[in-house]
């Protein structure tokens, strides 16, 4: 039985889900499970059912007041992440979209570089950016990635037209071996924010390109040939940049 078919076995799925929720799947096995869940709604549902069933165990767990500094730290991190300079930057992208793809890429990367060290506490700084273009080299999407909270934010400069039974899906293309791995289905929204899992953040660190394709509803295990946007994933750190 092939690996993917093996994981369709309901008994195995339930055993994996119960061990994942109980916390006994550790290390690479846990990361493998998280990767499997990305593309398997049935497995995700089994995990949610186990989470629900075991939740009652916390009924008798005594409350413990957090430190006073914890809420302050949370609010500082949030307000740092919503720095108005970043918001202005993104608004300006609407104007720059009429420029050539190369000019926009340079403008954005430079803007991020100028902004990052002065306007932002280190915990909320952007770590990666990808300006993604369509087949006419026109910028259509901008992805920024922040290690704090492992947040991926995607701004759509132009929304692709989809049929009802289609979804957009985001992919990472490895700079090491060229392998293509799903980062999940995304909604067609002006702005999307999602938190990445640890394995997904690993894919970002390893990525040469990010790419968005049109897939059947629910997504696919490999991208179709309908690529709507693709761009280099550039690491941004302090005043230096390097790819991937």
């Amino acid at each position: 039985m092939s690996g993917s078919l093996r994981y369709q076995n309901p008994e195995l799925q339930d055993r994996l889900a119960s061990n994942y929720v109980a916390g006994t799947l550790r290390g690479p096995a846990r990361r493998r499970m998280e990767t499997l869940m990305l593309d398997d709604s049935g497995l995700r549902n089994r995990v949610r059912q186990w989470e629900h069933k075991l939740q009652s165990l916390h009924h008798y767990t005594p409350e413990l007041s957090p430190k006073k500094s914890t809420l302050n730290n949370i609010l500082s991190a949030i307000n740092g992440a919503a720095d108005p300079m970043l918001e202005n930057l993104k608004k300006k992208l609407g104007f720059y979209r009429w420029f050539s793809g190369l000019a926009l890429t340079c403008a954005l990367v430079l803007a991020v570089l100028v902004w990052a060290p002065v306007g932002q506490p280190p915990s909320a700084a952007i770590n990666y950016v990808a300006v993604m273009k369509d087949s006419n080299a026109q910028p259509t999407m901008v992805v920024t990635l922040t290690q704090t909270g492992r947040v991926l934010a995607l701004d759509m400069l132009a929304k692709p037209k989809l049929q009802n039974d289609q979804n957009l899906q985001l992919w990472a293309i490895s700079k090491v071996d060229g392998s293509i791995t799903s980062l999940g289905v995304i909604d067609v929204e002006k702005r999307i924010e999602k938190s990445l899992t640890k394995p997904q953040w690993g894919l970002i660190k390893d990525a040469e390109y990010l790419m968005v394709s049109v897939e059947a509803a629910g997504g696919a295990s490999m991208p179709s040939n309908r690529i709507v946007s693709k761009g280099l994933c550039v690491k941004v750190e302090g005043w230096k940049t390097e790819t991937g």
Partner: protein
Amino acid sequence: MTNGDPADNPPAEQSAEEADRLEQLLARIALRDQAALQQLYGLVAAKLNGIAMKLLNDADQSNDVLQETFLQIWHKAGEYRRHQGEPMTWMTSLLRYRALDKLRSDKREQKRRDQYGEVQELFGETSAESPIAGMLQKDTDIKLNQCLQTLDTLNRNAILMAYYYGYSREDIAIHVEQPINTVKSWLKRGLTRLAQCLGH
């Protein structure tokens, strides 16, 4: 296990009104309402911190995990769907998985484990204040706790050590001085019987 939505049968301890309130706060947080985040924090942070403390047994680390979890809630609130699970279950899961990540990276884990007396209560007398006493009281109306009491003691303890106290299978094996394969069997048998009892 059925394919029904988990939220069809909410845990006994969470009233529908409380869940509704948490859901409304999450909806406001999805719209970047910081006041809603602070209200949510006031309602659930102490409980979540208590859960993290059981797993990590370290006040600094439990506060770190709580902080990371609230940042995740801030960023992911828009993804929350009530039909997929109750709000408290969703937030607890975010917290537990963060705590498990923290445990994996903590090389001092075993040292702390050796000093962890509460777990020992699973194998003997429990003090009245212990959450274990609550879980195992005979007249409980919580279905999960009723089912836990039907399990073989070693199977039940293995599940509680893993889920509630964050023990890995290796930790459990060391603690009970049994081979790891024995622990794996306890967990497998215990979780299977638990699922049957809960009507999966």
